[in-house]
């Protein structure tokens, strides 16, 4: 005991993990940023300044990808409110509440590939959903073939597949909620909406913040499987997101430097969105106090 070997033991225990993270996660980040200022093809390895970024922002596909990111940001409150409301109802023990948690959470553990493959069948022009709509005298809608519709379809499927994740997080937040606050609201005769706004939202501000950030990160970084299987970025490039653009430039077009520029742009977007959300939510929470 107390020998040199023993004192070094904690360092020995963390060393392999730290080595892997530094070499395969942090070092590539530096390498990638550096890489984004070099050229592709003939100009491989040459410093080209901001040329890749100029190419990037004049590429209609990347612009569409950015516009779609804007759309995701706009849809974010909806993607958070749905599981939030459902969790509230489950917490308030609507009939069947025990069942719902298990059922709603299930799609969240399925691969986007499986989800996308299944929805390819369901959303086919002559598939079940259009048939259901037909029965109601609506549609048919070309869910994946219409450039104005496809991005909403893919985002909708993503929300279907992942709302259970946020739901479970909300329920964990509710478990820490002081139920005497709810009782007090009840005694004061608060309406359902008032209770949500004045009791639940402030008490769960930390959980809500967590869900906002993780949902946004999920939208920006885990839709690749759906895009790959459902639309391949189409129709007419309308469903491109930055992660899909990076994949195409790296894997198909063999333009790694341009892909690196897109990666750096995506990283900055995530940084800005993440910080902005935390800032906004912190201010909102401060006002409630």
């Amino acid at each position, binding site marked *: 005991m107390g020998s040199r070997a023993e004192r070094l033991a904690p360092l020995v225990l963390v060393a392999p993990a730290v080595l892997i993270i530094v070499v395969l996660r942090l070092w590539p980040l530096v390498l990638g940023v550096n890489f984004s200022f070099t050229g592709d093809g003939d100009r491989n390895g040459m410093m080209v300044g901001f040329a890749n970024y100029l190419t990037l922002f004049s590429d209609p596909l990347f612009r569409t990808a950015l516009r779609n990111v804007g759309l995701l940001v706009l849809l974010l409150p909806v993607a958070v409110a749905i599981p939030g409301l459902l969790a509230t109802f489950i917490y308030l023990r609507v009939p069947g509440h025990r069942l719902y948690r298990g*059922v709603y959470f299930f799609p969240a*553990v399925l691969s986007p590939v499986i989800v996308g493959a299944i929805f390819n069948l369901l959303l086919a022009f002559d598939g079940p959903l259009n048939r259901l709509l037909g029965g109601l005298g609506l549609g048919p809608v070309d869910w994946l073939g219409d450039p104005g519709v496809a991005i909403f379809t893919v985002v909708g499927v993503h929300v279907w597949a992942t709302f259970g994740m946020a739901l479970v997080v909300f329920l964990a937040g509710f478990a820490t909620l002081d139920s005497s606050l709810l009782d007090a609201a009840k005694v004061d005769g608060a309406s*359902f909406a008032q209770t949500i706004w004045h009791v639940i939202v402030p008490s769960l501000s930390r959980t809500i913040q967590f869900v906002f950030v993780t949902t946004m990160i999920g939208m920006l970084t885990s839709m690749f499987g759906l895009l790959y299987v459902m639309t391949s970025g189409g129709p007419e490039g309308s469903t491109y997101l930055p992660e899909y653009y990076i994949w195409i430039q790296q894997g198909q077009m063999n333009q790694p430097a341009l*892909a690196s520029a897109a990666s750096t742009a995506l990283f900055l977007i995530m940084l800005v969105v993440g910080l902005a959300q935390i800032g906004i939510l912190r201010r909102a929470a401060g006002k409630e106090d």
Partner: protein
Amino acid sequence: MSGSRLTKWVVAVPMAVLALATVYPLVFTTNVAMKTRRDYTLDRFSLADSLRWDNVVKAWTSVGMSKYFLNSVVVVACSVALLLLLGSMAGFALGRLRFRGSSTLFLGILAALFVPFQVIMVPLARIMADSGLIDTYPGLVLAYVAQFLPFTIFLLTSYYSTVPAEIVDAARIDGNTVYGVYWRIMLPIGAPALLSVGVLNALFCWNDVLISLLMMPSAEHRTLMVGVTSLRGQYSDDIPTFASGVLIAAIPVLVVYLFLQRQIADGVTAGSTKG
């Protein structure tokens, strides 16, 4: 709260519809997988007349799903084993032992948590290619370990920080080395957390398609999810076989979910309430 019984029942109706909408896609796919091609063409919505496993057998054998399945099992098993080993070592050191600089190190690992794969995939592919690891199983395992290690360490560090220091001290007085304490005491004591983190990592690796696509270009090395994406082109005119392939990929996840739902949920929510 104005949650009168009537309101609750009114809310319960859309919630039940949503529950159906959550289950239906998989039921539909299973039903299609049980149909013959002819039945499917004639009427894709009617219930299959019997549990016909021909398509599933076909997808398993002649389409090559069995090979992809095996590839995935090997890669996921190795990745999860390595993640739990390295993650618990680091978690024990950072959460329980602590040493000079350990909290800074923990922050650095947390920072890696916010570097998504898409941001580093181009240089990572180059590093892997330069070291001859591209298109090899060790390379893919390493990529998964690198991807999910920060999250694993985060959860295991917060778990091990709740273990009382007296346990470590007592074991040391009994003559254990630090490594002995880790191996004989911390690993068993961490079992619940290791199970939860392990299941979650297994799902992440099993479900991944992007990392696998990037790291394993050749067809015979495909993991199951990449295999499913390739089915789509090959069997676009044989939907029951396609649906069977999807089913084969989904069943292990369904089984794991049925038995370990609580552990999965614990892993998902761990970051939201602590830290």
